[in-house]
């Protein structure tokens, strides 16, 4: 039976100043190899300037079945958006 390498999640920063964004996942035996594999698979068309990898097992995800309890209550709370302020004309870039 073939034992495969652990799975890693890959995060790529596309250019300085932007956040790292999830790009996908790869297999690798260890963290350094994960960086190399991520480089070869996700940055070969000039997509990035920085790579983070984290072993997938270390990511804790929310349960989709909990979505109603977690996210629904925020939907009707429009007062949490800062859309009720009158901006002075002098403020241009908001």
């Amino acid at each position, binding site marked *: 039976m073939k034992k*495969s*390498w652990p799975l890693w999640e890959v995060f790529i920063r596309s250019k300085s100043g932007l956040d790292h964004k999830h790009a996908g996942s*790869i*297999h*690798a*035996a*260890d963290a*350094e*190899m994960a960086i*190399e*594999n991520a*480089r*070869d*698979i996700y940055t*070969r068309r000039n997509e990035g300037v920085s790579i983070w990898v984290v072993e997938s097992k270390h990511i804790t995800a929310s349960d989709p079945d909990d979505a109603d309890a977690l996210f629904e209550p925020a939907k009707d709370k429009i007062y949490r958006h800062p859309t009720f302020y009158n901006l002075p004309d002098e403020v241009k870039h908001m």
Partner: protein
Amino acid sequence: MDANTPLYSFLLQLGDNALILGHRLGEWCGHAPEMELDIALTNIALDLTGQARALYQRATELNAQGKTEDDLAYLRDVPEFRNVLLVEQPNGDFAHSIARQFYFDAFNYFFHEELTRSSDAWLSGFAVKSLKEITYHLRFSSEWVLRLGDGTATSHEKMQTALDDLWYWTGEMTTPSDLERQMAADAIGPSLQQIKSRVNDRVNDVVSMATLQLPTGTWMQSGGKVGRHTEHLGFILAEMQFLQRAYPGNEW
């Protein structure tokens, strides 16, 4: 022998190393042990093929005679190729491909590091650009020597066997031919004697860190730089050149 200038022959020799090794790595496409390695090996293959193209294009600029880069890649026969014998050796198992790559990358890295100081402006520019790719190639192959050597008992044994099997093809790289002596004298190419110790030191460092041992044999095979090749190159060319030989002038 052709009546071309030494620089032209030098460009072809560098291009041949890159083209033939790139072809060998390309043979892994679809066959590597992991999908990630499939992409890694073919990425390196594409880097090398790109370097070969640049060198052939430059050669035809200097001495066109109506020839194109395709003529150089597809219409020369075995004795006209000047690549070192190491790069034409078969892929073998994964450890053999890694050993071949590591031995070549270690040489290629220090060779191009010196080539950045070439008195030929085109070659020094080419070296600056290629060195970035080659730095990654050496990192990749070194990391794999470490992992296989310092891995399981089986991987250690396979890596050691591969280092042993390919050892006697390595001396040719740092042994200067007449052409390379002349290039060094003209300050166009690196002095191979000068980079030899750097190459050996790097190879020794990685191999000992990987808990492996370099063979001690001193007899080295040679001939590629003057066109005397192993049987393998003919089979590579048969596959690589088939299309142009069967359908002359065909294009994408």
